[in-house]
């Protein structure tokens, strides 16, 4: 992957400032440490920081067409570029590089704005068409790669990360209270909103055209499900074979690179399935990477070792301690560019560092399988709640809830009566498109208890109502399971998992991630299936388990899904707490930044200090407050905290 930057000026004759463009681009050196490139002409400035993966010698950007009237600065990979290039050459296009980037330029010439629909990959780019004086932006379907933009004096500036806009002096960093409101509901602001006032992001699956001052974006692809009753059904073994075939091809084309490709191995079903398919294609040299924790409730090392041994990979492991998390956390926020409610991104940064130190530039990951193939507990939870909603007076229907979260100590110790009260939220309206996610969002929103009156007064509207109003009308005709999948794919996946915990943590170490489960052909296959193939009663990802059963250790396909979690507040408390924590969580800094109530934050810190087992919501509030403080200190105050 790479970093892209640029400015489109309203004044077609205006020449860009080279120094400003260089500052913007060098702010993204971590995304592209292998070189920078620039193109400036009247009305347009394009910058590029390159991480060389394909065509190491010839792929320097920005890249142009035959007569230099179409230019592109591009971040990502188009995995079907070989097939597209063959077609374009047959049609008479001449190439001057071997890169996938140049394919996009010629494809645009050939197909016009329909060109994006032909791309299978992960990408974010800006393409400048000098003849028509228009800039075309696009972002991949699932939202793997980022693209931010802002209206600035004289035009529109863009970049792969907001820090490019800040480095160019184009944006004054300031918190958008509604962005924080969404973050403390959905875990991240939802596109086009960001945490920075005045900065937007292009939503996943969208393209935008900028002509003069007019900027219009539209979706070219969306998550879509059949109407209830129109799902695909078939012979189970045939569907298993088909799934394995699509996944194998999605994996195969993601091996296209001129540098070594490795894989993350968490010890769960998804990454183990990928590694099994990879091992059939890269039998001798496959390197796998995993992370472990000292806390046995979070650690999956035993399963990682089992898969690595079974598949005979060259395995690399890093143990992440509490102090590692505390130490890398400020940098985590510098890269995520937004507060987070869990520390989970921090160990992902430690893991990507291990990959880079092992001289591997590209890793395949299992991210996306839970969304596409029905893996999350929230889908089960919603299924039980839907089942319960048919007979709300039933005593035994909600008892199924007790089976859902066996890995949470506290939950297993609780009274069923309380689980019923908590998960009963929204039960009276099971047709609400947000039904599945209301308990999670209600828990997350507890973080707002700590807000200052001033911050509360500066928010407008209700984030859930805003989302509800933006959901597609046809959702009401979808199966409830598909509605849950859609909400997850629209909210948490692109806004948090692929961003703060995905691209940003990979790029912090200049490593490219690739996501076979998010191949749009696989998404299309899975979305068409009746939900019962994905979630068989309460057995998650059933089709994938059965499809991969013969290729994995029995202990892996039999496992209950363990969500990836990392130690939270414990990493920052006690005698070894880093100085920045005491400083930023102290009364003075809380009052100075003004987002939170110093008195309440003091009581939270004191409570966590004496808690034997911190409650989940206290952990979440603590991490959310600390990371907001770190965000402000580093972006608004301009401090560097190490």
């Amino acid at each position, binding site marked *: 992957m790479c970093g892209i930057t640029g400015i489109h000026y309203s004044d077609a004759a205006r020449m860009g400032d080279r120094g400003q463009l260089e500052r913007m681009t060098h702010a993204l050196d971590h995304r592209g440490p292998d070189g920078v490139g620039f193109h400036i002409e009247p009305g347009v400035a394009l910058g590029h920081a390159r991480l060389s993966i394909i065509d190491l010698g010839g792929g320097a950007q920005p890249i142009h067409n035959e007569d230099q009237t179409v230019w592109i600065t591009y971040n990502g990979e188009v995995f079907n570029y070989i097939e597209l290039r063959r077609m374009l050459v047959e049609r008479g296009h001449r190439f001057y590089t071997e890169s996938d980037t140049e394919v996009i330029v010629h494809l645009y010439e050939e197909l016009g704005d329909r060109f994006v629909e032909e791309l299978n990959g992960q990408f974010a780019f800006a393409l400048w068409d000098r003849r028509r004086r228009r800039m075309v932006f696009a972002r991949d379907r699932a939202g793997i790669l980022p693209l931010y933009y802002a209206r600035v004096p004289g035009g529109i500036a863009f970049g792969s990360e907001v820090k490019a806009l800040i480095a160019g002096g184009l944006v004054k960093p300031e918190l958008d209270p509604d962005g924080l409101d969404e973050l403390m509901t959905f875990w991240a602001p939802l596109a086009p909103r960001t945490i920075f006032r005045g900065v937007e992001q292009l939503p996943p699956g969208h393209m935008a055209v900028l002509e003069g001052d007019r900027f219009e974006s539209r979706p070219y692809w969306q998550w879509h499900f059949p109407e209830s009753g129109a799902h695909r059904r078939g012979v189970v073994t045939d569907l298993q074979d088909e799934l394995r075939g699509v996944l194998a091809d999605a994996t195969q084309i993601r091996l296209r690179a001129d540098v070594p490709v490795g894989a993350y191995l968490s010890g769960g079903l998804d990454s183990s399935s990928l590694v099994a398919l990879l091992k059939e294609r890269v039998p001798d040299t496959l390197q796998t990477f995993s992370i472990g924790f000292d806390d046995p409730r979070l650690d999956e090392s035993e399963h990682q070792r089992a898969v690595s041994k079974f598949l005979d990979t060259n395995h690399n492991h890093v143990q992440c301690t509490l102090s590692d998390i505390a130490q890398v956390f400020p940098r985590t926020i510098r890269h995520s560019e937004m507060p987070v409610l869990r520390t989970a991104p921090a160990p992902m940064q430690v893991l990507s560092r291990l990959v880079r130190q092992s001289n591997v530039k590209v890793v395949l990951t299992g991210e996306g399988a839970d969304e596409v193939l029905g893996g999350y507990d929230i889908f089960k939870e919603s299924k039980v709640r839907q089942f319960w909603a048919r007979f709300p007076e039933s005593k035994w229907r909600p008892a199924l809830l007790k089976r859902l979260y066996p890995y949470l100590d506290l939950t297993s110790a609780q*009274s069923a*009566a*309380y689980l019923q*009260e*908590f*998960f009963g939220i929204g039960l009276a309206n099971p047709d609400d498109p947000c039904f599945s996610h209301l308990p999670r969002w209600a828990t997350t929103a*507890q973080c707002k208890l700590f807000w200052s009156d001033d911050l509360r007064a500066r928010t407008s509207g209700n984030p859930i109502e805003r989302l509800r109003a933006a959901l597609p009308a046809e959702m009401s005709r979808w199966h409830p399971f598909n509605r849950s999948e859609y909400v997850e794919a629209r909210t948490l996946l692109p806004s948090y998992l692929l961003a703060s915990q995905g691209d940003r943590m990979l790029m912090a170490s200049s490593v490219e991630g690739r996501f076979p489960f998010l191949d749009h052909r696989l998404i299309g296959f899975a979305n068409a299936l009746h939900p019962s193939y994905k979630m068989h009663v309460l057995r998650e990802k059933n089709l994938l388990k059965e499809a991969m059963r013969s290729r994995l250790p029995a202990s892996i396909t039999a496992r209950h899904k363990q969500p990836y979690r990392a130690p939270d507040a414990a990493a920052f408390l006690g005698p070894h707490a880093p100085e920045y924590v005491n400083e930023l969580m102290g009364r003075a800094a809380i009052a100075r930044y003004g987002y939170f109530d110093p008195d309440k934050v003091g009581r939270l810190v004191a409570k966590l200090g004496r808690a034997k*087992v911190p*409650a989940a*919501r206290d952990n979440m509030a603590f991490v959310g407050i600390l990371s907001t403080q770190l965000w402000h200190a580093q972006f608004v105050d301009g401090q560097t905290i190490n």
Partner: protein
Amino acid sequence: MTDALRDKIRGFILENYLFTADTKALGMDDSLLGRGIVDSTGMLEIIFFIEEQLGVKVKDEEMIPDNLDSVNRIATFVEARRKAA
């Protein structure tokens, strides 16, 4: 029912769930679940408090909202158990 017991329970909930000393923030009959003050995991802390600070053991079948969902309900439950002991 003693005011001291109710004040102690309210003080615990204010300190640990509402993070304030302002007694106006919690009415004696406010529903802890209904107001989102306690979630499903938070109940465990209240039970620890009742057992460790108020000296009353809570049996599994007693862990129900009828006994524990407001300051007054907790106080009534604790007093009844103390009398029965």
